[in-house]
């Protein structure tokens, strides 16, 4: 038997993908022996897939102002924000806010 995996989907929209190699959708298989909160996921993203200026994605331990985090299409504020614990097949979406017209 292999190590258990926690499979989730990461998505980026409205420009947030530009900080992550311009890839809009990624399937991740995280180490299933650990508990994964969003806080821990952000650290993992910083260490592993954030390719451009990190200050445009993170500020302190959280995402910078102007980026919305959605878990299964619901605002993370309704789900515990950084403390939310990822479940198998969760979809985590990062959206940059647009201001143009």
């Amino acid at each position, binding site marked *: 038997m292999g190590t258990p995996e926690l499979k989730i989907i990461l998505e980026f*929209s*409205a*420009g947030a993908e530009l900080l992550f190699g311009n890839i*809009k959708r990624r399937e991740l298989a995280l180490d299933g022996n650990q508990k994964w909160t969003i806080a821990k996921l952000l650290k993992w993203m910083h260490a592993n897939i954030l390719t451009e*200026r990190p*200050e*445009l994605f993170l*500020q302190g331990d959280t995402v*910078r*102002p*102007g980026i*919305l985090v*959605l878990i299964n*299409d*619901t*605002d993370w*504020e*309704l789900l515990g924000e950084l403390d939310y614990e990822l479940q198998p097949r969760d979809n985590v*979406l990062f*959206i*940059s*806010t*647009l*201001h*143009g*017209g």
Partner: protein
Amino acid sequence: TRTLHTKLTNDDIARYSRQLILPDFGVQGQLKLKNSSVLIVGMGGLGCPAAQYLAAAGCGHLGLVDYDHVERSNFHRQILHSETRVGWTKPDSARFALLELNPHCEIRSHVRLLNRFNALNIIRSYDVVLDCSDNVATRYLLSDACVMLQKPLVSGSALKMDGQLTVYNYANGPCYRCLYPVPPPKESVTNCGDGGVLGAVTGTIGAMQALEAIKVIVGLGDVLAGRLLIFDGSTSLFRNIRIRNKRPNCHVCSAQPLITQLIDYEMFCGMRANDKDAEQNLL
């Protein structure tokens, strides 16, 4: 004070027949539109189609706000302006095109940059406000002003091939500050001048801003409040996002607001209220 219309004219009936036969619309819905007034802030890529569909639908009074003049680089998406009106102010150019579409619409041009001193006075006499602006400072200004005056704010935005749409300050939903308590770092903000934008994308979002305004005015269907519609034009995928409720500690829209008067939004955001020199540092 405006006249309250209680009857449709024969011309109204001929003009709006295909619309007033819609379920839950009817003569009463058309009269609500005729008696309504909508302020559109920004006569660019979003404001043009939004104004077009509101005027066409029979919205009785439109206010158009923009300080800018028509330039050639507008034409690819700002479809109310034209070569013959280069150099006109955008509200005047748009008003000219809209009156050709519907001469029964009363249209007022507000040729000015909206700021803390003039915003409340301008917004006060309208029922619904459309945020078709192009910068962060104006977005906070409009949201705060709409909270203070209790007006629904139909907020659209677009950049490159992406668009976003929601209605703030409506049916107990959040305001812009509930969602974005802190302005973004200015290095993270790309304007349409630098990033580009496709006209068909602003057209899609702008037409839907008109749709949401009509739904609010007529009392039709489910308005996009507490939800955010995101559009990726490159894949033609839409997504409906459930956003947070009103923040209990929102500085503006909570029961005990900390901010009860408009502030200096360029200072608050560290960015100018236009998309022309976003790089200029004010601080």
